[in-house]
C-alpha cells in the first residue's frame, strides 16, 4: 500500500505540492488528472525519490516503510517503478542491457519481453537514443515489465503514441497492473481480483488510457493541491465538459 500524508514539496525553493493525501491499496490503480504545470509529474518524481523534489512536510509510506527520505534505488528495491515521459538517453548502453539491469537478479527472456511491446528491433540501440515519442513509451514499458515493480507510476503513457500502438500500450499497462484478469477453475473472479497486488498511478491528459485500464479512482491535481477524488470516468467527463475551471470552484468549496 502507498500512503501519502499531508505531503509538502518544494522544487528550487518554490512550493509545488501542498497538503497531499493519497492512499493506493494493493490492486488499485488511480488516474491523476490536472492541467499543465499543476504538479502531476512532480508528485510522481517525489514518490520515486528524485532529490531535487524536496519534501518539506508530511510523509510517504510504502508497504509500511517510511520512504520519505530514502534514495531512489532503495525505493526501486522496495518495489516502486516508473515509466517516464521524457527519459534521458544513456549513450553506449544498449536497450537489451538496460532490460537486464531492470530485471536485476531475475532471469528474463529479453527478446520475448520485447516482442510483447513490438520492440525487438530496438534492443541493440542505445537506450532512448533517437527514439520517437511512441518508441520511448514502449521502451519504458519493456523496462517496467522486466523490473516488475508493485507500484507503477506512469507519466502520460499514451502521449505521442500513434493509433496503431495505442491499444498495445494500453493493454500492456492493463496487464502490468493486473487489470486484465480472468477467473480460473479454482478461483472465482472475485478471488482473483482480491489477490491482485499491483498498484498504479497514471497521469493522463486525454483519458485514452481509460479505454484499456479499468481504473479504480481518479484524482485531480490543481495548483499543487489534490482537489477531487472520484470515479475517473466521471472526472474525465466533467473536465471535458467544463474544463479545469470547475476544479477551482470545487477547491474553494473544499476549503
Amino acid at each position: 500500500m502507498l500512503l501519502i500524508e499531508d505531503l509538502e514539496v518544494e522544487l528550487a525553493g518554490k512550493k509545488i505540492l501542498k497538503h497531499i493525501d493519497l492512499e493506493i491499496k494493493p490492486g488499485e490503480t488511480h488516474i491523476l488528472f490536472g492541467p499543465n504545470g499543476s504538479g502531476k509529474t512532480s508528485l510522481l518524481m517525489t514518490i520515486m525519490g528524485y532529490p531535487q523534489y524536496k519534501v518539506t512536510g508530511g510523509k510517504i509510506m510504502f508497504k509500511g516503510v517510511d520512504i520519505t527520505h530514502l534514495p531512489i534505488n532503495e525505493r526501486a528495491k522496495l518495489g516502486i517503478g516508473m515509466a517516464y515521459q521524457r527519459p534521458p538517453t544513456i549513450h553506449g548502453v544498449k536497450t537489451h542491457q538496460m532490460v537486464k539491469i531492470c530485471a536485476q537478479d531475475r532471469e528474463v527472456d529479453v527478446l520475448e519481453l520485447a516482442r510483447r511491446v513490438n520492440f525487438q528491433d530496438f534492443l541493440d540501440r542505445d537506450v532512448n537514443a533517437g527514439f520517437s515519442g511512441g518508441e520511448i513509451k514502449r521502451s519504458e514499458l519493456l523496462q517496467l515489465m522486466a523490473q516488475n515493480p508493485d507500484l507503477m507510476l506512469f507519466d502520460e503513457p499514451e502521449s505521442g503514441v500513434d493509433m496503431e500502438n495505442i491499444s498495445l500500450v494500453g493493454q500492456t499497462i492493463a496487464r502490468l497492473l493486473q487489470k486484465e484478469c480472468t477467473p480460473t477453475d479454482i478461483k472465482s473472479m472475485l478471488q482473483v481480483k482480491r489477490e491482485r497486488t499491483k498498484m498504479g498511478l497514471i497521469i493522463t491528459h486525454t483519458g485514452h488510457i481509460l479505454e484499456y485500464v479499468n481504473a479504480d479512482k481518479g484524482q485531480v491535481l490543481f495548483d499543487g493541491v489534490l482537489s477531487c477524488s472520484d470515479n475517473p470516468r466521471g472526472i474525465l467527463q466533467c473536465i471535458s465538459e467544463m474544463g479545469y475551471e470547475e476544479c477551482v470552484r470545487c477547491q474553494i468549496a473544499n476549503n
Partner: protein
Amino acid sequence: MPNREQLKQRALKAVNKPAAIGTDIDLGQFDQSPVEHRPLGHDELLSLPAIEKQRLLMAGIDVTESERSGTYIQKDTSVVRCGTKQEGIEVLPIKKALEKYDWIWDYYWKLVAVDADKYTAAVELNLHDGYVIRALPGAKSIYPVQACLYLDKQNLQQNVHNIIIAEEDSELHIITGCSTSPHMTRGAHVGISEFFVKKNAKLSFTMIHNWAEDMAVRPRSVARVEEGGLFLNNYVCMKPVRSLQMYPTTHLVGDNAVARFYSIIVGSPGSEYDVGGRVYLKKPGTRAEIVARTISNGGKIIARGHLIGEVPDIKAHLECKGLILNGGIIHAIPELEGHADGVEMSHEAAVGKIAAEEIAYLMSRGLSEDEATATIVRGFLSVDIPGLPPQLKAEIDRAVEQSDKTVM
C-alpha cells in the same frame, strides 16, 4: 642500403630539434644500449610467469596465439618472437628486412620525415628494431596479427620503427600492445610507424597502451591510403604514463579512400596525454571520421583533431567528448580546414560531467549510485567501431572493463 647514410646525416642535424608540440623530453637521461634477450618458443611463451602474462594480456596479446595470424614480440631491444601462421601474411623484424630486402626501401622513412624532430632522429641513429607486417595482394587475415613492444629494463629508451603494408585488395587486422614489466617504472619509448594501405585494401590497427607511471612515450606515425582503401585506427590508453604525445597523420590520396580514428583515454593523476588525429582528404569521395572519448581522473588530457579537406566532395567529422570525473584537465582542440567549395566538414566537442538525470534514471531501475555511475562511464567509453573483428572488439572491451576499477 642506398640512402641509409643520407638518412643518418639528416637525422644527425635534428638530434636536438624539439617536437612541434608536447613537453620536451631530455633523451639524454635514458640508456639506449642494447639489451639481449633470447628468442622464446611457443611453449616458453605459455610458461611465462603469471604476472608477465597478465601484462601481455592487458595489452591485447594472446600468449596461446590460437586466435592470431601471427606474432611479433620485442622485449627491450631484442626480438623474442616473430612469425606468422597464415599464407600471404608476413611478419618480420625491420632490421632483418633492411638487410635482406630491397623493397623495404620503397617504404622506409617514406611517410615520416627522419628529421621531423629529435625523436625521429633518435630512432634512425640508434634503431633497436621494430616490425614489418605485410599482407600480400588479395590476402585476408583470418585472425589479427599481434605485435607487442615490451619494456623490461629500467631506464631504457626503446627505439622502434614499424612498417605496415596492406597490398591491393588485401585485408589486414593488427593488434599492437605496448607494455612494461611489473617492476619497471621509468623509461622511454619512441616508435615510428608508417602505414601503407593500397588500392581497395582494408587495414585495421588497434593499439592498446599499458605504460608505467614514469614513462615518456613519443610515437610518430603517418599513413597513406590509396583509392578505395580503408584505414581504421583504434587507440586505447587506460593506464598512467608520465608524458605521452602523438599526433598520427593520415593522407587519403586516392578516390573514395576512408580513414576512421577512434580513441579512448582515461587520464590518471600525474599523467599527461597529448593525443589526436590528423587527416588530409586529398581526393574526391574521401571520408574521414575522428572519434575521441576521454575521461580525466585527475590527469591532463589534450585531445586534438584536425581535418583538412583539400578538394570538393569530401566528408569529414570530428567528435570529441570528455568527462571530468575526479579533477584534472581536458582540453579539446578540434580543427576543421576546408580548402574548396563543396567540402562537408563538421565537429562536435563536449567536456562535462555525468548528468545527474542519467544517474537517477538508472537508480530508479534498481542500481546504486556507484553502479549507475559505472554503467554510464562504461557506456561513454564503449564506442561502436564498424568493421572491427570480434577478437579486437573483445580486447578493447576488456581494457575498458579493467579501467572501471581505476575510474571509480
